[in-house]
């Protein structure tokens, strides 16, 4: 700091001359002063405006408007939307069915069967006897299933859960059958199916989904050959058609359990997951063929399957044979080993108390 001693004195004459200079009273123009003051006020207002938004909603909005926050929020929203869309997607209708690993093992150990298109010329009696409206009804059922997958989210989720439960039941039954087949590995693998003639009379209007299900049913039958190999092998050329017949009869029961009821001696009862699992078990264990003998009146367990209250098929399980008689159609049968028949009977009785 300067001291009075260091401070040089101001020259009074020069100061007086400055005081009387022509520009001594110079001042900024009023317009200039007004402009400066206005800019100063505006700067304070602009700075104070964000601070004035003390309302919580305004503060939240200004926080959300920040680019990093907005980008993060948008990312979360997109991820949630994709997740919900994936959750609602009916996977079993859009994705091809994958076979269990056991089927691959069984196929690789046995001679590879030649892919055989469905021969309509050797259709089973049941398929031939089935009225034309049966195929139409199957197509309608598939269409209905597709339509039912579209409505409300809750219904779709329940449907997806039921299907997942069915898939789990199938997997469990397959594991059981594989275990049993490993225990009874005595007979050689069945011969491979010979190439079948090209389809001639098959309806071109048959839904593709039904085809996929039929092919899957055929492959499942091949996977279950280890369990059924103790039984007499059916005619190779007739097997695919029989598998189609069986699939056309039993697959709707698995896919649309809400429409089905069952009856075993007593009153009519709703379809249960236990009976569904048993049907899957039966599906894996048998190879249907045209029935050459009528089902006996005694000594068999009779299970009637009704769809929408109407009798659809009658299943009879004897000590060494299973019969399936569609309503209004010719019966088919499947030879069973006594052990398999006993296991199936016990499981059926347990599933239909």
């Amino acid at each position, binding site marked *: 700091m300067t001291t009075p001693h260091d401070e040089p004195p101001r020259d009074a004459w020069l100061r007086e001359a400055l005081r009387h*200079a*022509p520009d001594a009273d110079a001042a900024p123009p009023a317009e200039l002063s007004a402009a400066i003051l206005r800019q100063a006020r505006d700067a304070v207002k602009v700075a104070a405006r964000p601070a004035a938004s003390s309302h919580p909603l305004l503060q939240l909005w200004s926080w959300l408007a920040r680019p990093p926050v907005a980008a993060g929020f948008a990312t979360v929203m997109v991820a949630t939307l994709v997740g919900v869309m994936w959750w609602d997607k009916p996977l079993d209708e859009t994705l091809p069915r994958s076979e269990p690993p056991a089927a691959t093992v069984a196929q690789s150990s046995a001679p590879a069967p030649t892919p055989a298109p469905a021969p309509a010329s050797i259709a089973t009696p049941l398929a031939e006897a089935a009225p034309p409206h049966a195929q139409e009804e199957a197509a309608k059922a598939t269409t209905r299933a597709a339509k039912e997958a579209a409505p409300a989210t809750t219904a779709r989720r329940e449907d997806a859960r039921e299907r997942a439960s069915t898939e789990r039941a199938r997997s469990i039954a397959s594991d059981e059958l594989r275990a049993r087949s490993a225990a009874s590995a005595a007979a050689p693998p069945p011969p491979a199916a010979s190439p079948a003639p090209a389809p001639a009379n098959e309806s071109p209007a048959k839904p593709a989904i039904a085809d996929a299900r039929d092919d899957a049913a055929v492959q499942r039958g091949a996977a279950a050959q280890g369990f059924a190999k103790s039984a007499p092998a059916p005619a190779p050329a007739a097997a695919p058609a029989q598998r189609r017949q069986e699939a056309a009869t039993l697959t709707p029961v698995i896919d649309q359990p809400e429409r089905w009821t069952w009856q075993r001696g007593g009153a009519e009862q709703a379809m249960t997951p236990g009976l569904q699992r048993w049907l899957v078990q039966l599906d894996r264990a048998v190879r249907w063929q045209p029935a050459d003998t009528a089902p006996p009146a005694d000594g068999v367990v009779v299970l009637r399957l009704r769809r929408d209250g109407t009798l659809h098929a009658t299943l009879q399980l004897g000590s060494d044979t299973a019969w399936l008689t569609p309503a209004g159609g010719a019966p088919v049968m499947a030879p069973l080993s006594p052990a398999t028949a006993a296991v199936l009977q016990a499981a059926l009785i347990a599933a239909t108390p």
Partner: protein
Amino acid sequence: MPTPDAPTDDALMAAYAGGSAAAFEQLYARHQAGLYRFVRRLLGPALNAQTDEVFQDTWLRVVQARARWQPQGASFRTWLYTLAHHRVIDMLRRSGRELSLDAQADDGDAPWEPDTTAWQGWPAPASAAPQSEELAFWRRAGEQLLACLEQLPLPQRSAFLLHHDDGLALDEVAHALEVGFETAKTRLRYAMSKLRTCMGAHLAPLTGGGTR
């Protein structure tokens, strides 16, 4: 000048930085005349038309720098004149005028000695009610002083104006011009010596005027 009860410049600037537009208006009212005169005299008659632009630009710098301003080391007034001095230098450079910021370069090392002989025939400067003849003399003296200021280098001119016209202490002058105290003191002495010589050579003493 503010009254003893009035808030200081630093307090007003702090209030303006906090959002008070009224504080800025008080600051502006206090310093607008002195700053305008300082800018006008530094620029000189040749650049008189740019006085408004430099003056406005200086105040806008104050507005823009309000949040960064800290009353440390220098008062608001010192800082204000520093901003104005920078703007004047920018304007002089833009106008193409040659600037010599080293004021001592051409002045040699001759020490400054107070010379009062030039004023012996002049009237007393502090007369409360000057006669019309005296008033005319001082008006001529003022005109002559402005002409003499034009001949001073910018550093000496700014030091003299800040010290004699705006009333800054010498250390404040040094702060405002961003030079050392001794440098400011030297500039001021050279400026006063030149001005006295210039004024004594061109302004005839008042006939029958008072003495110091």
